[in-house]
């Protein structure tokens, strides 16, 4: 085993050393690399995003929505029953003053949120509304509400089965609950699932959690200052990421972690202002959302088209069921693992139900999307895939145009926000990937350093090249995490139910009570 690890590590080092050269060549060899990579990974990507027979509904989206529904029913709507309790936990009402100085529930929630709030909320929603119309919002909200139960399940398990080391640090996440939880239940295969999950998590960290972010950040920056080579952004970003994750320069991370929530608030604030100014249109916008949800209002695929887009973007945005949040929440020292579960169920609510809905409402109200005045139906683009917009904008530009139509300087703030969100998502995913990496190769300074160096190299590659197939592959990797994770959750959910029963009875009996502060 040790031999294998050494071989893999030396191979990884070789990749890390060769990669800067690769990054430069990647620009000139872009096409070749794309083609070769697409050929190699195509079948895997195709499998993960394969549509259900006779539809264009990717089965993976159904997989996540069904899981969220099952968990919602299995825990009898835990997201609503314990909603106010979750708020009380975050406020610190149940925190023992003697534990002051440990990671608080609020901090755990904020850390996990900074990993999920980002491009998905700004660009992803625009894609959903761009293709599926306002009706997609309805399905997105529904998926977000159901996803709260998935997060609850995975985060409770993440804390319950994490590893605590003698030096006081902790490592947790799906790989740990898969191997330990399956062992406890006497089920075979936990270790295999854990290894599979870890591999997908590392790939997802390099791809969606890194290259995609670097790529989008570069697109935003070059959108403001004019076109310039991507590797410049890449090197700059890689240097900052290097300083944070390798150099331990926490001040940079701390500054970002402070600005990101501020940007999030600014974003929601701006959206609220736009909604307030157009308060007379809010009722109409919700009307559009409901009407569109069931009729499609002329979008491609009608109601089903709206539903697919809504579900898909909710899953992309809040990562419920993917397992990433379980890693983030495991770092919290709490006597009751389930309290982390309660806190985490707020994430899909904030991420999807609040922030994504704001984006969707602003786009709908802005009227950037073109409607045929005679029929009230949306006018589609020439290829029929999307709703036509003024200026032909889509994706993040659609959000930008919608905000810009009300607040002219906001696109600039939005661009800065996207870059910062991208950075904080990278920092979060570097941690998720690292945990999966150390699960496979063992904890240790050298193994950790190798992962971190490779991670930095991928930042440059991601920003430098327009590697479409690589992005597809990394998206597929993130969703493969969900395949493995949800599969394991079905077996382990009875453990969570036991925890829930025990906790609720102690809460009812007054054994668990608020501390007076």
């Amino acid at each position, binding site marked *: 085993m040790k031999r294998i690890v050494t071989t893999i590590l030396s191979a990884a080092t070789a990749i890390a050393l060769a990669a800067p050269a690769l990054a430069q060549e990647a620009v000139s060899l872009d096409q070749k690399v794309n083609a070769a990579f697409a050929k190699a990974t195509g079948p895997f990507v195709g499998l993960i995003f394969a549509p259900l027979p006779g539809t264009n509904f990717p089965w993976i989206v159904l997989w996540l929505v069904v899981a969220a529904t099952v968990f919602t029913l299995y825990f009898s709507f835990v997201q609503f029953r314990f909603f106010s309790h979750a708020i009380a936990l975050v406020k*610190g009402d149940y*925190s023992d*003053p003697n534990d*002051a*100085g*440990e*990671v*608080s*529930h*609020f*901090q*755990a929630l*904020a*850390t996990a949120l*900074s*990993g999920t709030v980002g491009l998905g909320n700004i660009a992803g929603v625009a894609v959903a509304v761009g293709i599926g119309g306002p009706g997609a919002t309805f399905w997105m909200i529904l998926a977000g509400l159901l996803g709260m139960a998935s997060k609850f399940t995975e985060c409770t398990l993440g804390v319950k089965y994490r590893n605590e080391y003698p*030096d*006081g*640090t*902790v*490592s947790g996440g799906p790989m740990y609950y898969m191997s330990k939880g399956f062992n406890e239940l006497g089920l075979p295969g936990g270790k295999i699932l854990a290894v599979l999950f870890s591999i997908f998590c590392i790939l997802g960290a390099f791809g969606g959690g890194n290259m995609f972010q670097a790529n989008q950040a570069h697109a935003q920056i070059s959108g403001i200052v004019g076109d310039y080579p991507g590797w410049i952004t890449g090197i700059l970003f890689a240097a900052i990421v290097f300083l*944070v*994750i390798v150099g331990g320069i*926490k001040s940079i*991370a*701390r500054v970002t*972690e*402070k600005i*990101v*929530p501020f940007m999030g608030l600014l974003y929601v604030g701006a959206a609220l202002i736009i909604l307030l100014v157009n308060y007379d249109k809010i009722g109409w916008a919700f009307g559009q959302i409901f009407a569109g949800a069931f009729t499609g209002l002329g979008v491609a695929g009608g109601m089903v088209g709206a539903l697919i887009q809504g579900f898909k973007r909710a899953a992309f945005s809040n990562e419920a069921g993917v397992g990433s949040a379980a*890693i*983030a929440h495991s*770092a*919290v*020292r709490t006597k009751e693992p389930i309290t982390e579960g309660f806190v985490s169920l707020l994430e899909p609510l904030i991420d999807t139900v609040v922030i994504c809905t704001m984006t969707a409402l602003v786009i709908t109200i802005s009227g950037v999307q073109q409607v045929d005045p005679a029929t009230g139906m949306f006018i589609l683009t020439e290829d029929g895939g999307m709703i036509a917009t003024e200026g032909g904008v889509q994706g993040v530009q659609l959000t930008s145009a919608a905000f810009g139509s009300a607040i002219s300087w906001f696109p600039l703030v939005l661009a800065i926000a996207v870059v910062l969100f991208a950075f904080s998502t990278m*920092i*979060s995913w570097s*941690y*998720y990937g690292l945990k999966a990496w150390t699960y496979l190769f063992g904890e240790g300074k050298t193994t950790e350093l190798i992962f971190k160096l490779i991670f930095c190299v991928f930042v440059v590659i991601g920003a430098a090249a327009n590697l479409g197939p690589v992005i597809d592959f990394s998206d597929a990797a993130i969703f493969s995490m969900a395949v493995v994770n949800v599969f394991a959750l079905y077996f382990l959910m009875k453990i969570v139910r036991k925890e829930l029963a025990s906790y609720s009875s102690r809460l009812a009996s007054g054994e668990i009570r608020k501390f007076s502060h």
Partner: protein
Amino acid sequence: MTAKLVVGVDGHSSGERALDFAAKLADKIGACELLVVYIIEWSPYSFQTPEENEKRHNRREEEIAVAKERIVEPAVAQLTKDGLSARGIVRHGNVADALNDVAAKENAEQIIVARSSERTLSQRIFGSSTANLVMEASVPVTVVG
């Protein structure tokens, strides 16, 4: 029954002044226990990276150890040497709130702190810990100049 006096220290000269005053006061009272309290400024509402969260427990232990070793224990040792009864406490939290909490929990007679000589921007905006303590405290507060 012995009276308890909470003395807030900060590792600076202002803390020394508070200690000196408290020692004199304790000497006059007689049966009296001095609680030397150091509060590590900490907020449950700050933002941290996942890695910081993971190492938080260790950092907390380190912070407490350092505060005890460098600030609280030397002060307690000095007071004990001077024939006074003294005990050290290190806590995390908001300085004003945490000092008041300690005083309430220990049934202390009063809190003794010194006026901080530093004037930072945040103090100008949010007020100093001392000022906040005076406004919020549930027991009498003596502010040493």
